[in-house]
């Protein structure tokens, strides 16, 4: 009896967890969408009269060295940070998966060539790549996204490839072949749906990492353009103020933390529900 209740409760809890975290993740996305409407101040308005003022009722997160309201900047930064991360993760997961599936499916030299390219990208120091890409394309978030995408897709390619190989050796794929499925159909009907969950979960879990990497590039002046509010560059810009004006660093830092945590927990909950 006791056991019964617990398992039922666990199931309910699992669904509840997914609900809670999808709501939270949704809230984050909404914040990003309606950043402009939500900001209490203009995030770009400089005010030399209140430079680096400590958190107060007027400025709950304090102000930065330009006298801009940190809360507004954190909210405005949600758009840049979350959207660019979403785009980046979207690009790498889709392209990586496509490459991995095709490699596994067609094998032979396609596999050899694509996987060698993946090896190159994987072993390539991202910094050098980012530097060059930004020189060719000019700085900006787009550039940073492209540079990071170039070095991060192999992870997905590898995952998709190994999973596809596994699926290809399964009986149900043989059954699909016997049912007369063409290669495209097999990929779309059986392979993709079966790896999608894992890829999705990996992608959601990757949000945090990628957000950090994007901000690392911002730090080098390769990411978000001045004066775009972006959490990573806000954090790196404030690094010297850790001891003196900690809020300048802590505000974007906690925004990153919350986002990373929410997306991770959302990914976890999603996995629990997708793969019981």
């Amino acid at each position, binding site marked *: 009896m006791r056991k019964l209740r617990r398992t039922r409760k666990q199931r309910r809890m699992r669904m509840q967890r997914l609900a809670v975290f999808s709501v939270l993740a949704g809230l984050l996305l909404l914040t990003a969408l309606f950043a402009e409407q939500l900001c209490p101040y203009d995030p770009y308005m400089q005010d030399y009269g209140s430079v680096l003022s400590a958190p107060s009722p007027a400025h709950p997160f304090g102000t930065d060295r330009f006298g801009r309201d940190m809360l507004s900047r954190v909210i405005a930064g949600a758009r840049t940070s979350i959207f660019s991360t979403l785009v980046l993760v979207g690009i790498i997961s889709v392209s990586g998966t496509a490459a991995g599936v095709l490699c596994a499916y067609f094998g032979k030299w396609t596999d050899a060539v694509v996987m*060698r390219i993946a090896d*190159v990208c994987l072993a*390539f120091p991202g*910094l050098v790549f980012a530097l060059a890409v*930004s*020189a*060719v394309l000019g700085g900006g978030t787009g550039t940073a996204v492209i540079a990071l995408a170039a070095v991060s897709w192999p992870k997905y390619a590898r995952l998709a490839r190994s999973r596809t190989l596994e699926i290809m050796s399964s009986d149900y794929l043989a059954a699909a072949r016997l049912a007369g499925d063409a290669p495209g159909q097999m990929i779309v009907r059986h392979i993709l749906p079966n790896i999608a969950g894992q890829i999705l979960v990996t992608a959601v879990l990757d949000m945090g990492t990628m957000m950090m990497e994007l*901000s690392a590039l911002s730090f080098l002046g390769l990411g978000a353009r001045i004066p775009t509010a972006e959490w990573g560059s806000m*954090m790196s810009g404030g690094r010297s103020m850790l001891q003196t004006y900690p809020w300048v660093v802590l505000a974007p830092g906690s925004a990153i933390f919350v986002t990373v945590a929410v997306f991770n927990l959302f990914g976890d909950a999603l996995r629990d529900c997708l793969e019981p």
Partner: protein
Amino acid sequence: MKRYIIRRLLSLIPVLFGITFLSFALMHAAGSDAVLQSMDASGITLSREVIDARRAELGLDRPFLVQYFSWLGGVLTGDMGVSYVSGRDVFSTFISKLPATFLLAGASILLTVVISLPLGILSAVRQNRFTDWLIRGCSFVGNSLPNFFTALLLIYLLAICIPVFPVISEGIGVRSAFLPALTLATAMSSRYLMQVRTAVLDELGKDYVAGERARGIRFSATLWKSVLRSCMTSLFTLLALSVGSLLGGTAVVESVFLWDGVGKLAVDAVNMRDYPVVQAYVVWTALVYTAVNLITDISYHFLDPRIRLEGGRR
């Protein structure tokens, strides 16, 4: 087995070639060069003649492909050229800085394992309980901190508030290595911990766990003797893969802690567009990374009887 190793080594050749070529090409595309870069840094304007003369001296005026192949030729004969900036022999400079980086990387891997293995397992075993949430919470914090920030925080706490460690490393030693290694380990652990957790959870769902339970074997015994041993190979692979990000991380951390290793050298070189040094670094990272992964693959053959005895399934 031997054939496998040889095949893996052969497949390294195009990869290395690709890496060197790409990096060479990209650094060129990145504009600027060692001469212009030093002008920015010092703020002393140089005349066109001086710039051109210096470029010619460094061979920077030659066509790109000529530069690349002359460099590549040098590499194959064991000569990586001299630094554009310091004029020193790149190869020997590199070799002299390698041990420091290896020490740091080794220490952080060790720390990572020491931190994340027990915590990851604990978190898996106590899935969705308080302990699990707590551990995962910490891992999110670790994941949200950029390396430079962790570094500053650690210095602040352990060198200034409680002065147990030095801020700047006093040569290459264990005491100096602790803080930088801990910085790297923080980032790595928070990711690795989650991977350990997932792997262990996966393994716990397998039939043999129920089997051992039915045989009345203590859960702890199952965990340590069977579960861990079974997921050892995948844990190993994940660790090896994270060596990539570790190598990237050493660059930042070495610069912050003034750890005189290859990472710092590389950051300086990238800033300076000191191509020969950047090339050396790229080749080195790629080599180490590929070697680490090669070694992992080969060590499977010893770690996992399924592969060892079936003779190279992959």
